[in-house]
């Protein structure tokens, strides 16, 4: 009896040791925008494989790039692709390169508050750029009237509201305006923060939506998911095919599907994407994964997680209001996983 217990103990000890050896703890950090879906994924994946735990700190895209470059996290995450200079810096510091893996899509929508106007307004890219440059100052400007036949717009001044904090949301918005307006590109440009020609700054989506809701005749931009959650009115935007499209998860996914040639490294802006039914102010968000992972257990875990994320993980996106990746991109990414060594 005693011997049997001893044997059992030995067996148990052996199992525990093996279990401990397989315990993989992965640290990641970066963008705040995809944090809800990432934490859902990491949680679900941990339930599926209890020996793998992924910690994600939502410290912002800039922080994600900085931390993965410094090697303090196993992988990073960003709402904007890394620049060539940032990739060079990564290569110089870490001796390998960095791979971009799109995970989900997000979009920006124009939101407004005009007393007496309940209709969903149509916006052309040119009009949005002109409003945000301060060239169109009144709601009844012919450029806006033309896109909204039958809607009675007031002659009041437009109060522009933008993000005051640097953010991926601002990058998508200014990237789109740069594509539809040469003047915007020359004078203001694209970035997570820019030198706004006009307007009030609100901190975060909540700051912008708060200012828009409380200021009559205002126009701002917020993330699609935020607008849906808070049941805000938002306008349709004219896409490259000439249609006014309401932002929805389907029309955002369509923007990624509309890209005819996806570059090898997935570093691509999909604002103003061609194709029918495409919402033009859409973007990927990316995981930033080093091409060389020294720890074999971590490498295996990360590769398996990516495979799971591209299959089962994509099914979890819609309840959290993220647009899933189109099939073609998923197929291309599954091939790219082999580049992690």
């Amino acid at each position, binding site marked *: 009896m005693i011997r049997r217990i001893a044997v059992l103990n030995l067996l148990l000890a052996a199992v525990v040791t093996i279990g401990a050896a397989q315990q993989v703890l992965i640290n990641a950090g970066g963008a705040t925008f995809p944090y809800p879906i990432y934490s859902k994924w990491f949680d679900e994946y941990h339930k599926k494989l209890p020996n793998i735990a992924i910690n994600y700190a939502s410290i912002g*895209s800039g922080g994600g790039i900085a931390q993965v470059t410094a090697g303090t996290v196993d992988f990073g995450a960003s709402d904007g692709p890394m620049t060539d200079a940032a990739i060079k810096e990564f290569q110089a510091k870490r001796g390998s390169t960095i791979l971009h893996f799109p995970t989900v899509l997000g979009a920006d929508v124009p939101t407004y508050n005009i007393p007496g106007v309940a209709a969903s307004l149509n916006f052309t890219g040119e009009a949005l750029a002109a409003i945000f440059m301060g060239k169109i100052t009144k709601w009844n400007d012919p450029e806006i009237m033309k896109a909204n036949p039958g809607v009675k717009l007031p002659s009041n001044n437009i109060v522009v509201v933008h993000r*005051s*904090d*640097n953010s991926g949301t601002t990058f998508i918005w200014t990237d789109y305006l740069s594509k539809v307006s040469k003047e915007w590109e020359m004078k203001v440009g694209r970035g997570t923060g*820019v*030198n706004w020609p006009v307007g009030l*700054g609100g*901190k975060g989506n909540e700051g912008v939506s708060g*200012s828009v809701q*409380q200021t009559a005749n205002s126009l701002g931009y917020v993330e699609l998911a935020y607008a849906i959650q808070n049941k805000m009115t938002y306008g349709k935007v004219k896409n490259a095919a000439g249609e006014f499209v309401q932002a929805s998860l389907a029309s955002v996914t369509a923007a990624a599907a509309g890209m005819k040639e996806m570059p090898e490294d997935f570093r691509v802006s999909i604002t103003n994407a061609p194709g029918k039914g495409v919402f033009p102010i859409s973007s990927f968000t990316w995981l930033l994964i080093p091409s060389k992972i020294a720890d074999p257990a971590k490498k295996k875990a990360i590769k398996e997680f990516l495979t799971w994320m591209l299959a089962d993980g994509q099914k979890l996106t819609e309840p959290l209001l993220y647009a899933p990746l189109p099939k073609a991109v998923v197929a291309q990414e599954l091939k790219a996983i082999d580049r992690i060594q």
Partner: protein
Amino acid sequence: MSTAAPTAFEARPSGRASAFWQRLRSGDDIAYVITLTCALTILAVTALLIFELFRNSALPREKFGWSFLTGTTWDPVVGQYGALPFIYGTVVTSALALLMGIPLGVGAAIFLAELAPTKISNGLTFLIELLAAVPSVIFGLLGIFVLVPALVTLEPAIRAVLGWTPLFSGPFYGVSMFSAGVVLTIMIIPFIISISREVILAVPTEQREGALALGATKWETTWNVVLPFAKKGIMGSIFLALARSLGETMAVTMVIGNEPKIHSSLFAPGYSIAAVIANNFAEASDALEKGALIELGLVLFGLTIIINGFARVLVLSTTRKGAK
């Protein structure tokens, strides 16, 4: 054991060293060394802070030099950074807060310490001290969802009274330097009240009795005897309030409008140093922007020292006059 101690004691050299040991045994020097270490730690932390801010802002300091302080453009896309709009916003909102907060705070403190019945005074003071512990983000949220709409409704009244000055001209969108000043006022008042009340209560009763015996009224006693006596402490509370308003971040950024431009009207949006750092640091586009934000931290540090020094000189000169 009993023999070892005297031998060790005798082995020690006589003179200063033994005197030191004796004082050490009595505890004075231990207390001296411990408290000195505490004081030096604070000094070291401050020095380290300045050093780090200075070191990490090397990039923009080299690129812009002193023109960083006078530049008015903040453009991360082309890498052009100037601090003046942020300095302006910080100084204006803090000045507004003090302008409104000092009379309100000191007035309330006088009432609570001198005039109110003890029970009411204690109850109210407890509530006010609770107010001081409310996190600033709560003030910011109340600011944007309650105060800003309220100010929008009050705007015609304010404009009717003060609209003739350039300080209250131009369109008002709710978020503005004025709104930030009002939120800051609410935030700093608890500091002024609770410290000033303590200081006023600490004025010796004999002072009051003396004045009353000479035939002064209650208010004359308070104004001419108690307040001058408590002046230094009240000033101390104002310094603390000033420091809080200069460095306030969350509450200000939510109501100031976050526009890095210099407007003469208080109804116009502005931006403060602490707010721009909080807004942009996490997602700073490159090393230059990060450096510029750190340099702004250094500027805020310098600004605080200058304003505090200036205020101290002011206090020193007035207290000397009072002593005459």
